[in-house]
């Protein structure tokens, strides 16, 4: 069922390496405007390629498409294996899209070391893309880890906060801590495959290939162990409550561009969907795992929302709202039914527009007031009506107003949660209420009412570049909100395959002697 559709032209490799090669090319440029233009051109080409992939993608199919596979370290079963299916292909587009916007945003907001910044940004794009398109666990891990480097420097060198060094280090250490555990988990998968393969006399004795690992049964206790190990990696990255404390710091101290990528691309939860659940279906379905993870998710929903309620800093608020949203995603994922998975996947994409969009808004605010603290705002709508409008549109998407993309995802998640266990959904619904409360309350205090004392009188409304960002985000938000069908069609096949895998459950049945005899 999950056969690979191999296209002739290695378009995924092109997508993958275009930004980093572009970054190297930027090295040669000196003129700052030239650097900006080139970076924009690169990201635009990347976006065009991604759109091409999306257009050529065969929807309603679970197959790995545009697959490329080159043996890398054959002896260990490591290969350079790329491919996209319904789960990952949207992220490719999203990454490319956000990268363009970040470059556009950074055009005049980044004033020092522009070249280096753009290079870091492009490198980050490559690594992020790599995470999404890798089908080999080691390759995935490679990009997963490499991502830390540009992120670290983006936070450290271009962050606005005083604590940015601390935040950068915290981010990197936190993520690394999780990912080393994940590495162990990956190694265990490999070992398990090796044992299975040597029992069944197949050619490949070691493999890190996702598709091959899927074919090997894993004993239950092993699955649980691996699940938790991988959980560490993904949970730290996601971040899932209570592993989240790096996020507010990183988002607050880092530059907006970095925050957009960090908050917009839900790598951790993608990891769950891509690796944990399909590879470890039995563990993912086990009572303890589901309960623990979902309870964490529910805690995150409420905790994040309540925290967001009292944050005076908009970026901090966004960080906690992000945590709250991740709670939704986790709950959806571990509802382990069609709607839950689909909703989570869609929500991951959605947040790429809405949360990322709010960070852009925060950036717009920041570039006007040099702060995202509430004390710097008040009655801004009078001064910057357009900004206020887009703020509201994107914000409403983030709280899941019907008609915006947020609703579709959230609705599916809640539906899935209800299907799984009614109280999952019942608790999660509370998040919807508080979600509206924190956003609107902040919006009210920042944007509405009489013009605040600290608000500068000579404040301009959105510039052209900012308009481009805001409008394109809004268009996407409304598109997915009103006509999500193309997106749903793309993901349906893979989600169905995932659900089937979960339903058919364990492959460990193969291990039983009867099955052995049968063959």
């Amino acid at each position, binding site marked *: *069922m*999950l*056969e690979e559709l191999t296209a002739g032209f290695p378009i995924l490799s092109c997508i993958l390496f275009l930004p980093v090669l572009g970054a190297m090319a930027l090295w040669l440029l000196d003129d700052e405007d030239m650097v900006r233009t080139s970076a924009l051109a690169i990201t635009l080409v990347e976006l065009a390629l991604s759109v091409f992939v999306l257009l050529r993608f065969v929807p309603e199919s679970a197959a790995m498409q545009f697959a490329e*596979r*080159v*043996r*890398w*370290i*054959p*002896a*260990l079963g490591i290969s350079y294996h790329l491919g996209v299916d319904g789960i990952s292909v949207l992220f490719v587009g999203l990454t490319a899209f956000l990268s363009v916007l970040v470059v556009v945003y950074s055009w005049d907001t980044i004033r020092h070391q522009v070249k280096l910044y753009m290079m870091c940004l492009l490198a980050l794009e490559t690594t992020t893309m790599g995470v999404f398109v890798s089908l080999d666990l*080691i390759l995935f891990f*490679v*990009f*997963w*880890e*490499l991502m830390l*480097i540009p992120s*670290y420097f983006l936070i*450290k*060198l271009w962050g606005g906060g005083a604590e940015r*060094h601390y935040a950068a*280090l915290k981010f*990197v*250490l936190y993520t*690394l*801590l999780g990912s*080393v*555990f994940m*590495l*162990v988990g990956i*190694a*265990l998968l490999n*070992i398990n495959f*090796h044992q299975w393969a*040597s029992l*069944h*006399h*197949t*050619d*490949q*004795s*070691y493999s890190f*290939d996702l*598709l*091959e690992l*899927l*074919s*090997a*049964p894993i004993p239950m206790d092993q699955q649980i162990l691996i699940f938790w190990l991988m959980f560490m990696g993904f949970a730290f990255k996601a971040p899932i409550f209570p592993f989240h404390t790096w996020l507010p710091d990183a988002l607050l101290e880092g530059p907006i561009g970095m925050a957009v990528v960090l908050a917009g691309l839900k790598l951790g939860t993608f990891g769950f969907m891509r690796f944990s659940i399909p590879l470890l279906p039995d563990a993912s379905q086990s009572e303890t795992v589901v309960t623990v993870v979902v309870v964490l998710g529910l805690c995150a929903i409420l905790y994040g929302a309540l925290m967001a309620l009292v944050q005076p800093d908009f970026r901090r608020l966004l960080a906690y709202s992000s945590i709250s949203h991740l709670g939704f995603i986790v709950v959806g994922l571990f509802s382990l039914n069609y709607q839950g998975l689909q909703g989570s996947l869609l929500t991951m994409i959605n947040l790429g527009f809405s949360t990322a969009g709010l960070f852009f808004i925060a950036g717009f605010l920041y570039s006007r007031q040099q702060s995202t603290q509430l004390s710097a705002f008040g009655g801004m709508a009078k001064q910057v009506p357009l900004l206020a409008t887009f703020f509201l549109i994107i914000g409403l998407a983030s709280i899941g107003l019907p008609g915006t993309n947020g609703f579709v995802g959230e609705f599916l998640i809640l539906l899935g949660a209800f299907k799984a266990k009614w109280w999952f959904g019942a608790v999660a619904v509370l998040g919807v209420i508080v979600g509206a409360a924190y956003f609107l309350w902040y919006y009210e205090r920042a944007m509405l009412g009489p013009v605040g004392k600290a608000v500068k009188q000579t404040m301009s409304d959105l510039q052209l570049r900012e308009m481009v960002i805001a409008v394109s985000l809004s268009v996407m938000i409304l598109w997915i909100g009103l006509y999500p069908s193309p997106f749903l069609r793309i993901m349906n096949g893979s989600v169905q*395959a*995932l659900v*089937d*895998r979960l339903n*058919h*459950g*364990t*492959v460990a049945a*193969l291990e039983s002697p009867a099955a052995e005899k049968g*063959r």
Partner: protein
Amino acid sequence: MGEYALLYILFAPFAGALALIMVSNRQPMLVRGIAASAAFVSLIASVYLFYAYDPVKGGFQFVQKFEWSRQLGISLHLGVDGIGTPLVLASSVLLFTGIFVSWHIRDRAKEFYIWLLILAAATIGVFMSLDLFFLYFFYEMSVIPMYLLLGMWGSHTKQYLEMTDAEGLKLRDSVGFIFNFGSNSKEYAAMKLVLFLSAFAVAALMGILLIYKYSGLDTFDILVLREQAHLMNIPVLGTTLDKIIWVLVFFGFASIAPLWPLHSWSPVGHAAAPAATSMLHAGVLMKLGHFSIIRVAFEILPETTREMMPIAAVLCMFSIVYGGFVAFYAKDTKYVIGYSSSSHMGYVFLGMAALNYISLSGAVIYMFAHAMATGMLFAMAGWVYDQTHTRDLPSLGGLSNKMPFISGCFIVGCMASIGMPGTVNFIAEIMIIVGSWEKYPLQVIVAVLGIVLTMAYLFKMMRSLFYGPMNQKYSHAHDAVSVVDRLPLLVMIAVSVGFGIFPMHLYDVVRSGVDPLIARITQVVPVAQSGDGLGVRGEATIPPATRHVPLVANNPVPLIPHLSRGNE
């Protein structure tokens, strides 16, 4: 021509040293030129060696044997297997780069280069010795030049330099000397290093001599000894002789590795040494320990190794955590790197202790990888020291504006040291983890946490070196701009990243050396014969068995049974 590669590699530095004796210090370019060309010859020959080594054939290749004393059974027996080859390559790369790193040494440059060449040559000699006598000979020979290199061209710690008052001077020479952790003179470091290593070398020597005596073969030849020496179960002193020998050899050589708690010499030594020496020392000299253990203990006492290796597995944990912690706390660039090296050597021991194809290959690759990574770091720490004349982290900072190239390379070095994917360290790390998990899960967990720790202290160092506010005192510091300055770093980065992305040949070579060794130790024919992976390289085809792998795996496509193995 090709079969004499080992001789070129080994004797080119010696010849260079001899030639240097003839020239005067007043012609610095000539001095450097001779040193560099000697190193270059060695490098070219080792690259040739590395790529000419036939991993399919395996075993010891390029063997040269010259009788030295027939009565005593000593001969200059040279040869490399899959384990020695990459290490020889690493040594000559570090020698070559070390020459360039120390390009700007003005004080007695000739002598410096002579000793550096001898040091490297001796190191290389160990990696290719197939004779216990010469192995020990080169081993000791590599220790002695360190004394001079440290004592003459080394640097003092900050605290030591600050102790200029009468009180401090008194402290240097009194009971205070006992607690002089942060205030070492280079002489102290040199003395400590040489005495420590010599003392433990003597233990190793005793082991070697016991092997010689009790094997009853009247030969030091490893190839003969490993086939014919039967040292098992000779009762002595309440235990068996082989265990005594093993312990002597293991700890004797582990001191240079350095295995906790025998590490105390190493950070001091690294810190005091000039950059090139640190590079060579941390890069390859420490690997002499592992290599010698593999050569002597693993080859000659396989069964004992199997029994006793858990010792290493226990100690390596301490090594990793302890080194990491101290590195985290250290305030001196080279101390940080030094302790990080001693921490990282714990990974190698872990890989060795698991006694498994993957993990031991990982350990060997880690040695190679660490040589490059730590070489880079020391080279750059040396550059910073040359520019600022201090290794004190708190007083440094903000240098990235002054030296963007160096800071960029430093990042790469740090990443390599952490084992960031894309560098060969990552390959090694993952192999060690994969290989050791079955046997030592706890250690693996400690090891991966050690990675986090590594990142913590390296990033901390990076920050305090290159970022933050800059001390105006160092405003004259400048970047590496000339080719000569950049070349060594670029070479090491290229090697590290190159093998990180294309590790196939390295892996094949190492596997060809490791496989027979492990087979000897575990006495089990490997299921995973590396033959599968060796021939095929970079092919885009998918093996037939795995082409259609279903997602729903409880209904898999029947996998083609392999007829040649199993089923009997």
